[in-house]
């Protein structure tokens, strides 16, 4: 077979974990190759997204910043150019810092050039090359045919653990017969919204807008307290800049009424997050308004059917939004994602498996490579409610953060491989699928791979001493220590 090239680090998948891994590996001096099946980089951030929590939850509930590194660097760079909303002034209250997804995508290409990352786009990884337990490369198919890309360390950033599973690494997937898979979504963005009209409506109907997935009890506040606070907050809104701080708005009551009248589907709420555009402009991005029930995205028949069903739901949602959301009378579709954003498939098993108890205990690990402040224990469901929560679970024990240990990136049974992104080793209750987590694990895997190559050791051997890995990550801006 034709060999396309040989590299120190080969990253498979150019989504949020992959681009972070590539930048990080290249910065530690590795000759790095990033392979992507599409002509674009960014995956769930700009092609199939962004998700609402894209640039959010970088602070814990105490207001301490816990997540930084490449995610912060990219935010600040976009903010400087007028393509991002500034960091929140009171991060213990609101924690959204939206960025313009299209400019984000353009910037990522710039960063690849600046950091001399080699790219291989329009190339689908279809198999691995193994020598015993050692992974030596991947096989791709593209316009030029079938070819091998060799690497000293391979990082699976496919999002679904495609490479690890083809290499024979054990993985977990929920039993579909018993549990609902978190549904995939097609998102759409609307422009031309009369924000003043909407805000006036929110002010005057604050009580009606409490039927929303984001309005629920926390560790320190009962649901009633949260609701009272929300009403006050809604009544204080004056401009769109007030509204965007809360991240999203859900029209739960309206959704229920429309479903009852047959004017809306039953698979997601009518509600939206926000997309900032140049010059202070805001658009509404709907990403809970199409959710495909029980779609296993690692099965091609279900994935295909999911693309069809999601669009059917989107067309219904677009019409309902224009007709029934106050201020949307003259709003129009301005952008639709190219394919489904997949929330849940495989979790690849590594040398450590994160469990919900680690989250509840705000656990810290000696081999920390990053942090998360995601409360976990909440799942998307293809219903009007959108989210279900594990009863009695209230997130991170001390309202702090929990550590992500290096070992969750080291897959069992094979050598020379790392995993980053939503399929890192975790139990379902603390599935690390959120975008900041994917960029944190991506960056860490990139540095680790670069370091392994430099030292001539395997990712598993690096587990013995991660101090240099931690030093480099901190120099790259990552937060590892010193927070709750």
């Amino acid at each position: 077979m034709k060999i396309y090239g040989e590299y120190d680090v080969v990253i498979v998948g150019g989504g949020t974990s992959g681009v972070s891994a590539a930048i990080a590996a290249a910065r530690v001096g590795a000759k790095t190759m990033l392979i992507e099946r599409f002509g674009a980089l960014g995956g769930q951030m700009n092609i199939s997204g962004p998700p609402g929590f894209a640039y959010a939850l970088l602070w814990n509930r105490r207001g301490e910043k816990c997540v930084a590194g490449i995610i912060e660097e990219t935010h600040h760079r976009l903010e400087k150019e007028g393509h991002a909303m500034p960091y929140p002034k009171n991060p213990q209250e609101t924690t959204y810092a939206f960025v313009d997804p299209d400019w984000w995508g353009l910037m990522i290409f710039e960063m690849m050039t600046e950091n001399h990352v080699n790219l291989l786009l329009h190339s689908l990884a279809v198999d691995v090359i193994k020598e015993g337990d050692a992974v030596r490369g991947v096989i791709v198919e593209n316009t030029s045919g079938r070819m091998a890309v060799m690497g000293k360390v391979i990082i699976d950033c496919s999002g679904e653990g495609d490479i690890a599973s083809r290499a024979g690494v054990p993985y977990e997937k929920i039993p579909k017969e018993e549990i609902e898979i978190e549904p995939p979504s097609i998102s759409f963005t609307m422009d031309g919204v009369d924000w003043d009209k909407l805000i006036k409506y929110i002010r005057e109907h604050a009580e009606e807008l409490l039927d929303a997935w984001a309005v629920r009890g926390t560790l320190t506040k009962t649901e009633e307290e949260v609701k009272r606070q929300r009403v006050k907050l809604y009544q204080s809104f004056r401009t769109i800049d007030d509204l965007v701080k809360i991240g999203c708005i859900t029209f739960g009551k309206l959704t229920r009424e429309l479903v009852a009248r047959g004017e809306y589907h039953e698979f997601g709420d009518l509600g939206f997050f926000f997309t900032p555009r140049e010059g202070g402009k805001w658009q509404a991005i709907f990403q809970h308004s199409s959710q495909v029930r029980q779609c296993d995205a690692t099965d091609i028949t279900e994935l295909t059917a999911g693309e069809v069903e999601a669009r059917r739901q989107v067309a219904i949602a677009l019409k309902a939004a224009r007709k029934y959301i106050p201020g949307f009378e003259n709003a129009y579709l301005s952008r639709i994602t190219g394919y489904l954003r997949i929330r849940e498939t495989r979790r690849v098993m590594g040398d450590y498996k994160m469990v919900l108890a680690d989250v509840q205990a705000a656990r810290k690990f000696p081999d920390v490579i990053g942090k998360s402040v995601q409360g976990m224990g909440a799942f998307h469901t293809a219903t009007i409610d959108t989210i279900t929560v594990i009863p009695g679970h209230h997130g991170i024990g001390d309202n702090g953060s929990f550590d992500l240990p290096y070992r969750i990136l080291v897959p069992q049974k094979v050598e020379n491989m790392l995993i980053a992104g939503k399929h890192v080793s975790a139990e379902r209750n603390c599935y690390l699928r959120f975008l900041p987590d994917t960029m944190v694990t991506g960056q860490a895997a990139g540095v680790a791979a670069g370091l392994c190559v430099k030292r001539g050791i395997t990712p598993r051997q690096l587990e013995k001493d991660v101090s240099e890995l931690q030093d480099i990550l901190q120099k790259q801006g990552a937060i590892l220590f010193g927070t709750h």
Partner: protein
Amino acid sequence: MEIFGSYDVVVVGGGTEGVSAAIAAARAGANTILVERLGALGGQMNVQGPPGFAYAHMFNPRGEQVIGGIVEETHNRLLKDGHALPHLKPQWRAGYTFSYVDPDWWGLLMFEMMAENGVNLLLHSLAVDVVKEGNTVRGIIVENTSGRQAVLGKVIIDCTGEGDICVRAGAPYEKRAREHLMRPSIAFTVDGVNWEVILKYIKENPDEFQFRTHPYLQMSKDEMWKQIKAIKKIEEIGNVPDGWFSIVEKGVKNGEMHQFGTVGFFLTPREGGVIQAHFQHSAHVPDCDATDVRDLTNAEVEARRQAVMAWKFIKKRIPGFEKAYITRVTPEIRVRETRRILCDYKITEKDIAAGKKFKDVIGKDQYQAGGQHMKMSTMLDPNAIYAKDGGSTDIPYRSLVPKDLEGLLVAGKPICTDETTYKRFIVSTMVTGQAAGVAAAVCAKKGITPRELEKDVKEVQDILVKQGAILYGTH
């Protein structure tokens, strides 16, 4: 190998010709599957585009409609729902007609039409090889999340846009030298444009713009500008292919703008009468052969570098765009030119010049030969050849039947033409797609090969006419 399924007709590639072929085949009674590498349908129309001349040139310079079929049907359907502009036929432009649709709603409509017509879909699946028995193509091999599978069919239609399936099956083809290939683009759409300022500037600066009128009209520049000055809404102008020449020249000189494109735009209509400006000549990558993965990869990088530079320049320097903002960037480059597959008939520029009609006509085209996309689109091809009487030219069925192979049809850009008559425009891809779909279904029903069908295409023509295609009765 696992067999995903066996069908009457397998359409490979879900771009503009592929969706048309699938709809047409299913309507003609075939059990049809459409295979696409992405999760979206529509290709250059809504994923990598749209190109400016997406739904355009449906009327010849005499004003006769020459394109109907699925193009007309989808335009009408979107128009009815407020997602399209009516056919724009500016008198002073003749033949340069526009029938703009909202590309995102067009994409949603395609999915609806697949469901309505019972087309089977296989998305997220890259076709990597063919299944052959002697010279007969029996199916294709795809790679996707479930692994490697075969998809078998009585007739396979190559709608990949680049002739990938024909070439892997061994069909002969032509391709110009890398440096002569038309350049691929990334497009971006902007909203918040001050159209009054734009129109005023155009009217006051005739030397700063170049609008195309058709030679059939023989209109003087003064006459043309008299008409432009009477325009009240941007829609009446059709498009602004390129202009602001002295501002751009200055920008290139002082390093604010690159030299690989122009400032000009087409229109994107949105619900409720909103018009966005769609830029797709502001990033052109030279020396890219998109059938070479290295070139293709490098082009994705270079196109974005150019697009960023161009937009910053436009926003800063072109009056009317001060408060505009990017609202959509195409996720992949749109590939203008690669292979032309050799088939049983090759359409040549002589055919265009003569406005030739064929017995085995399956559709028409009114575009000139030599309408090449230049490095700078300010350069109109001086050697372009136009149909003699302001009419159209037929596309014969034989130009869709690849040489040396059986069981295979080709539609879209790579159908058999010479260099200058390359049928890359969307309306042509949909016309040849629809025809290939009907032909494949007829072959499957009759148990004959696409080549055997050449002997008598009457049934195909009858079905096409019933499906709304225009085959006869125009210049």
